[in-house]
């Protein structure tokens, strides 16, 4: 039952509308059991300068078949229908995973029902007594749907491009390792074999090459670690942060012993997270506290405070501190505040921390003054414990 409406001569109105705006193409599905009401709806839309292509259905089965077959810009549905009602169209659309705006066109329903329609997902509600309002309502519903589509498209595009970028970082850092190993190994062999046998410049050049290769190896290794965060879809499990710190202390044994560092912690909570990532997070923070120590032996204090919705973790140190103007920059990948001679490193550690925390819906920041130690804070949402089946 397809009626294609060509432009019709209807007095002076269409001429004025044509001058203002071209007729908008509209594919509408009308759900209506009263044929004279169908005519009134079509007439109203035509007057609203739509170039209309419309189908009319009455039953839920017909409706379902139509939306499966065709694509529509809008659905105009009566509320009271034989055997069902206009809100049934929304249920069917949801079931079919279709996003088509539904405008309820009905006799008086009363405010409560009208509000209900909108709440349940109708784009608008137009009284049959006020059909001249219909074109504007339809136009708005269609526009909103377009914006929704554009927004969704942009989000999908962003997610895809992020995925591509992560994939690129992963593949690049992974595949760079092998040739880099050749450069590092063989420049080292050169250095070992020919040190002092060429001239002084040669020794210096070889040293630069060896140093560069080693630095790049660290960079590539850390970049790989960064791109690995969140790649493995590990199932979050209860993680005892006290045990995490024990592991961290064991992993950093050499640095702790060498610097005389003390790592203090008390009553840390059990949270729902990925164990490996929690080790990475705390290890990066503790290792930084040791690396950026002041003249005094490092004292690192780890505490957690329950703030109802979040756990607030704080890692306090007595190190060299960070100027407040650099407080944000340090979390950006590759950003460093020191030369390689002062402090070696890739500038990736804290961005890994940030990625781990934010992936879980938390936040990380630093509170510090230059020369007065630092406190790294991060939040971790208090999640419901994993329910055992």
């Amino acid at each position, binding site marked *: 039952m397809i009626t294609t409406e060509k432009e019709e001569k209807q007095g002076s109105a269409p001429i004025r509308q044509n001058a203002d705006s071209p007729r908008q193409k509209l594919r509408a599905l009308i759900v209506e059991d009263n044929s004279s009401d169908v005519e009134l709806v079509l007439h109203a839309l035509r007057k609203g300068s739509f170039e209309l292509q419309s189908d009319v259905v009455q039953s839920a089965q017909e409706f379902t078949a139509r939306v499966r077959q065709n694509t529509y810009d809008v659905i105009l549905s009566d509320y009271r229908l034989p055997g069902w009602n206009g809100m049934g169209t929304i249920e069917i659309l949801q079931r079919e995973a279709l996003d088509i705006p539904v405008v309820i066109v009905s006799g008086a329903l009363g405010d409560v029902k009208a509000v209900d329609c909108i709440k349940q997902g109708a784009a608008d509600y137009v009284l049959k007594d006020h059909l001249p309002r219909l074109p504007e309502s339809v136009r708005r519903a269609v526009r909103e749907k377009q914006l929704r589509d554009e927004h969704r498209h942009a989000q999908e595009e962003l997610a895809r491009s992020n995925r591509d970028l992560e994939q690129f970082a992963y593949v690049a850092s992974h595949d760079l390792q092998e040739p880099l190993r*050749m450069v590092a*190994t063989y420049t080292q*062999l050169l250095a070992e074999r020919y040190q002092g046998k060429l001239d002084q410049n040669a020794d210096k050049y070889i040293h630069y090459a060896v140093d560069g290769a080693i630095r790049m190896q660290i960079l590539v290794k850390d970049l790989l670690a960064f791109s690995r965060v969140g790649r493995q879809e590990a199932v979050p499990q209860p993680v005892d942060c006290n045990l995490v710190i024990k592991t961290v202390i064991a992993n950093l044994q050499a640095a702790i012993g060498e610097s005389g560092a003390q790592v203090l912690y008390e009553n840390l909570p059990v949270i729902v997270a990925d164990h490996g990532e929690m080790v990475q997070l705390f290890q990066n923070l503790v290792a930084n506290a040791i690396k950026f120590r002041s003249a005094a032996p490092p004292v690192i204090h780890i505490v957690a405070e329950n703030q109802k919705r979040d756990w607030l973790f704080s890692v306090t140190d007595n190190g060299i501190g960070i100027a407040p103007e650099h407080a944000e920059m340090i979390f950006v990948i590759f950003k460093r505040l020191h030369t390689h001679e002062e402090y070696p490193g890739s500038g990736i550690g804290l961005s890994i921390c940030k990625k781990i925390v934010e992936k879980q819906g938390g936040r990380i920041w630093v509170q510090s003054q230059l020369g007065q130690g630092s406190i790294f804070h991060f939040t971790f949402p208090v999640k419901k414990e994993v329910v055992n089946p």
Partner: protein
Amino acid sequence: MIAGMKSKAEVLLVDDNPADIDLTREILSKCKLHFHVNAVNDGVEAISYLHRDGNYADAPAPDLMVLDLNLPRKDGRAVLRELKSDPHLAKIPVIVFTTSQASSDISRSYELGANCYLRKPGNLHDFAAVVQSMAEFWLGFASLPHKEKR
């Protein structure tokens, strides 16, 4: 160990990277042990060598095999599976020597019958240490199976 008591051990390196073969040979040559090193560059060659096919008719049977995992044509996992399921070859100790750190590669290699899994370190000093220790252990301390006369 008294030099001359043993016949020279035969080591087969299977690696597609000539730089790694050279380096491994170089480090092995510094060891005070008696052995002979042969090398092939991919999995198909390795299997031909073991079966003494074609060009390898006179190849000595290896006492120890050092196998990379990622190889052209036939990869190291397939070589390992074939070797360990062949009753004539299964007793040859195989040392997997690769850059892969993937726990799946480590488990799979042992499941397939690898005798040892060693990761290639990224710098010369560690690389040399690993190859030296491997040679000292497997060619010095370890007792290797007698070779069958074929």
